[in-house]
């Protein structure tokens, strides 16, 4: 699974840190999130999708081949 995170879009809302604490943290100066692991194991798929859904800036996406089947 691969996570795409566009730091330029990130607005430091921090919702990804809430719903996906194993994948995201805030950066040192708190003005953007940081992606801790761009290629996490399948165990974290739920967190990754929740982070993508929770981001008000649409800065997070699962790579196309990795999207959950809807």
């Amino acid at each position, binding site marked *: 699974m691969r996570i795409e995170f566009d730091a330029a879009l990130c*607005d*430091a*809302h*921090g*919702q990804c*840190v*809430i719903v996906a604490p194993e994948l995201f943290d*805030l950066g040192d100066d*708190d003005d953007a999130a940081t992606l801790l692991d761009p290629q996490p194991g399948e165990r974290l798929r739920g967190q990754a999708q929740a982070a993508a*859904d*929770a981001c*008000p800036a*649409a800065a997070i996406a699962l790579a196309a081949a990795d*999207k*959950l*089947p*809807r």
Partner: protein
Amino acid sequence: MTQARRIVIAGAGLAGLRAGEALRDGGFDGELTVIGDEPHPPYNRPPLSKQVLTGTMDPDRCRFPADRIQATWLLGTRAAALDRARRTILLHDGRQVPYDGLVIATGRRARPWPGRVPPLGVHTLRTVADSLALRRAVDPATRVAVLGAGFLGCEVAASLRTLGVATVTLIDIAPHPMPGLGPEIGARVAAMHAEHGVRLRLGTTVARFEGRRRVTALHMADGTRIPADVVLIALGSVPNTEWLAGSGLALHRGSVLCDTHCMAVGADRIAAAGDVAAWPHPRLSEPFQVEHWTNAGDMAKAAAANLLAAPAHRTPYTPVPTFWSDQYGAKIQSAGLFGHATRRTVVEDDPGSGRLVVEGDRDGELMGAVTVNRPRALIGYQRALAASPAPAA
């Protein structure tokens, strides 16, 4: 309700989209139909008062990827009536849409000014069309009055100043802007707007609009007159539930009354989500609703999962509500039920960095917090509130 073959989502905003995704994620493989009154597929509304209004974001970029769900999209039409006996929604254009399961996510619309307004120059802001219309209506010389200094009015005032509009007046009957967040945050927000050249007219309201065809001024209750070429009415919203009249569904202050599982009270096949829904929260004595972005998605996911689940397997929806506002580069964030606190305490105040943290408690119980430029602190409050058991209200 695992046997549902046809689920209809009334509303094609964020809540409607997330409900559809969650239904598919939850294993629903029957017919899914989404009804939306705007001609557009689901899009993100927060940029409408900020980046879309200032022109730094193309409206097309607000679109959510909606092809993730297999659904029939009925756009540019809206639900006109609900016939629960026949399990059918009647659309405004006369079509009928049958359902086994229904998610109500019809949202809200801008609250109109209760009196007469001139037909030209008076705006509201709820849709992408509204945002583009407001942008087209202003240039640097336009005199704009923003009626209502809640988060929408404040964001629009900031965006207009960013656009170079010289004369922006922000009006509210409350003594400070962002009245729901208390005087400490309000004073900070007032200072930001004053520093950026917004004229603040607080503690007073409009008596009448001047202008027969096009607005020319606002006459205030205190006898003063504010010349205005454009007026934005930003006085909150009203729920889109008129179509439910006669359906027998219970409403609370106009919103669909749900149980703790986001299911419409007394209706096993109908859930509701987002700002059209009211539901009981364990910390509050009355049903409440949340008119913010995060709740639209979170509640839609919970509503969809509970709609698919057998009644005994439904999960209560007990979120820590959160929202934000961006003004002049400052990020204001709220977590919890700050508006229900009986005491506020400033725990951090650094005018240099703009950082401000205010906690709210009720008899010593942390109810919520509001922060300015302190996202890490907000995360801490969100986690603390999620972890603390909610006593019976």
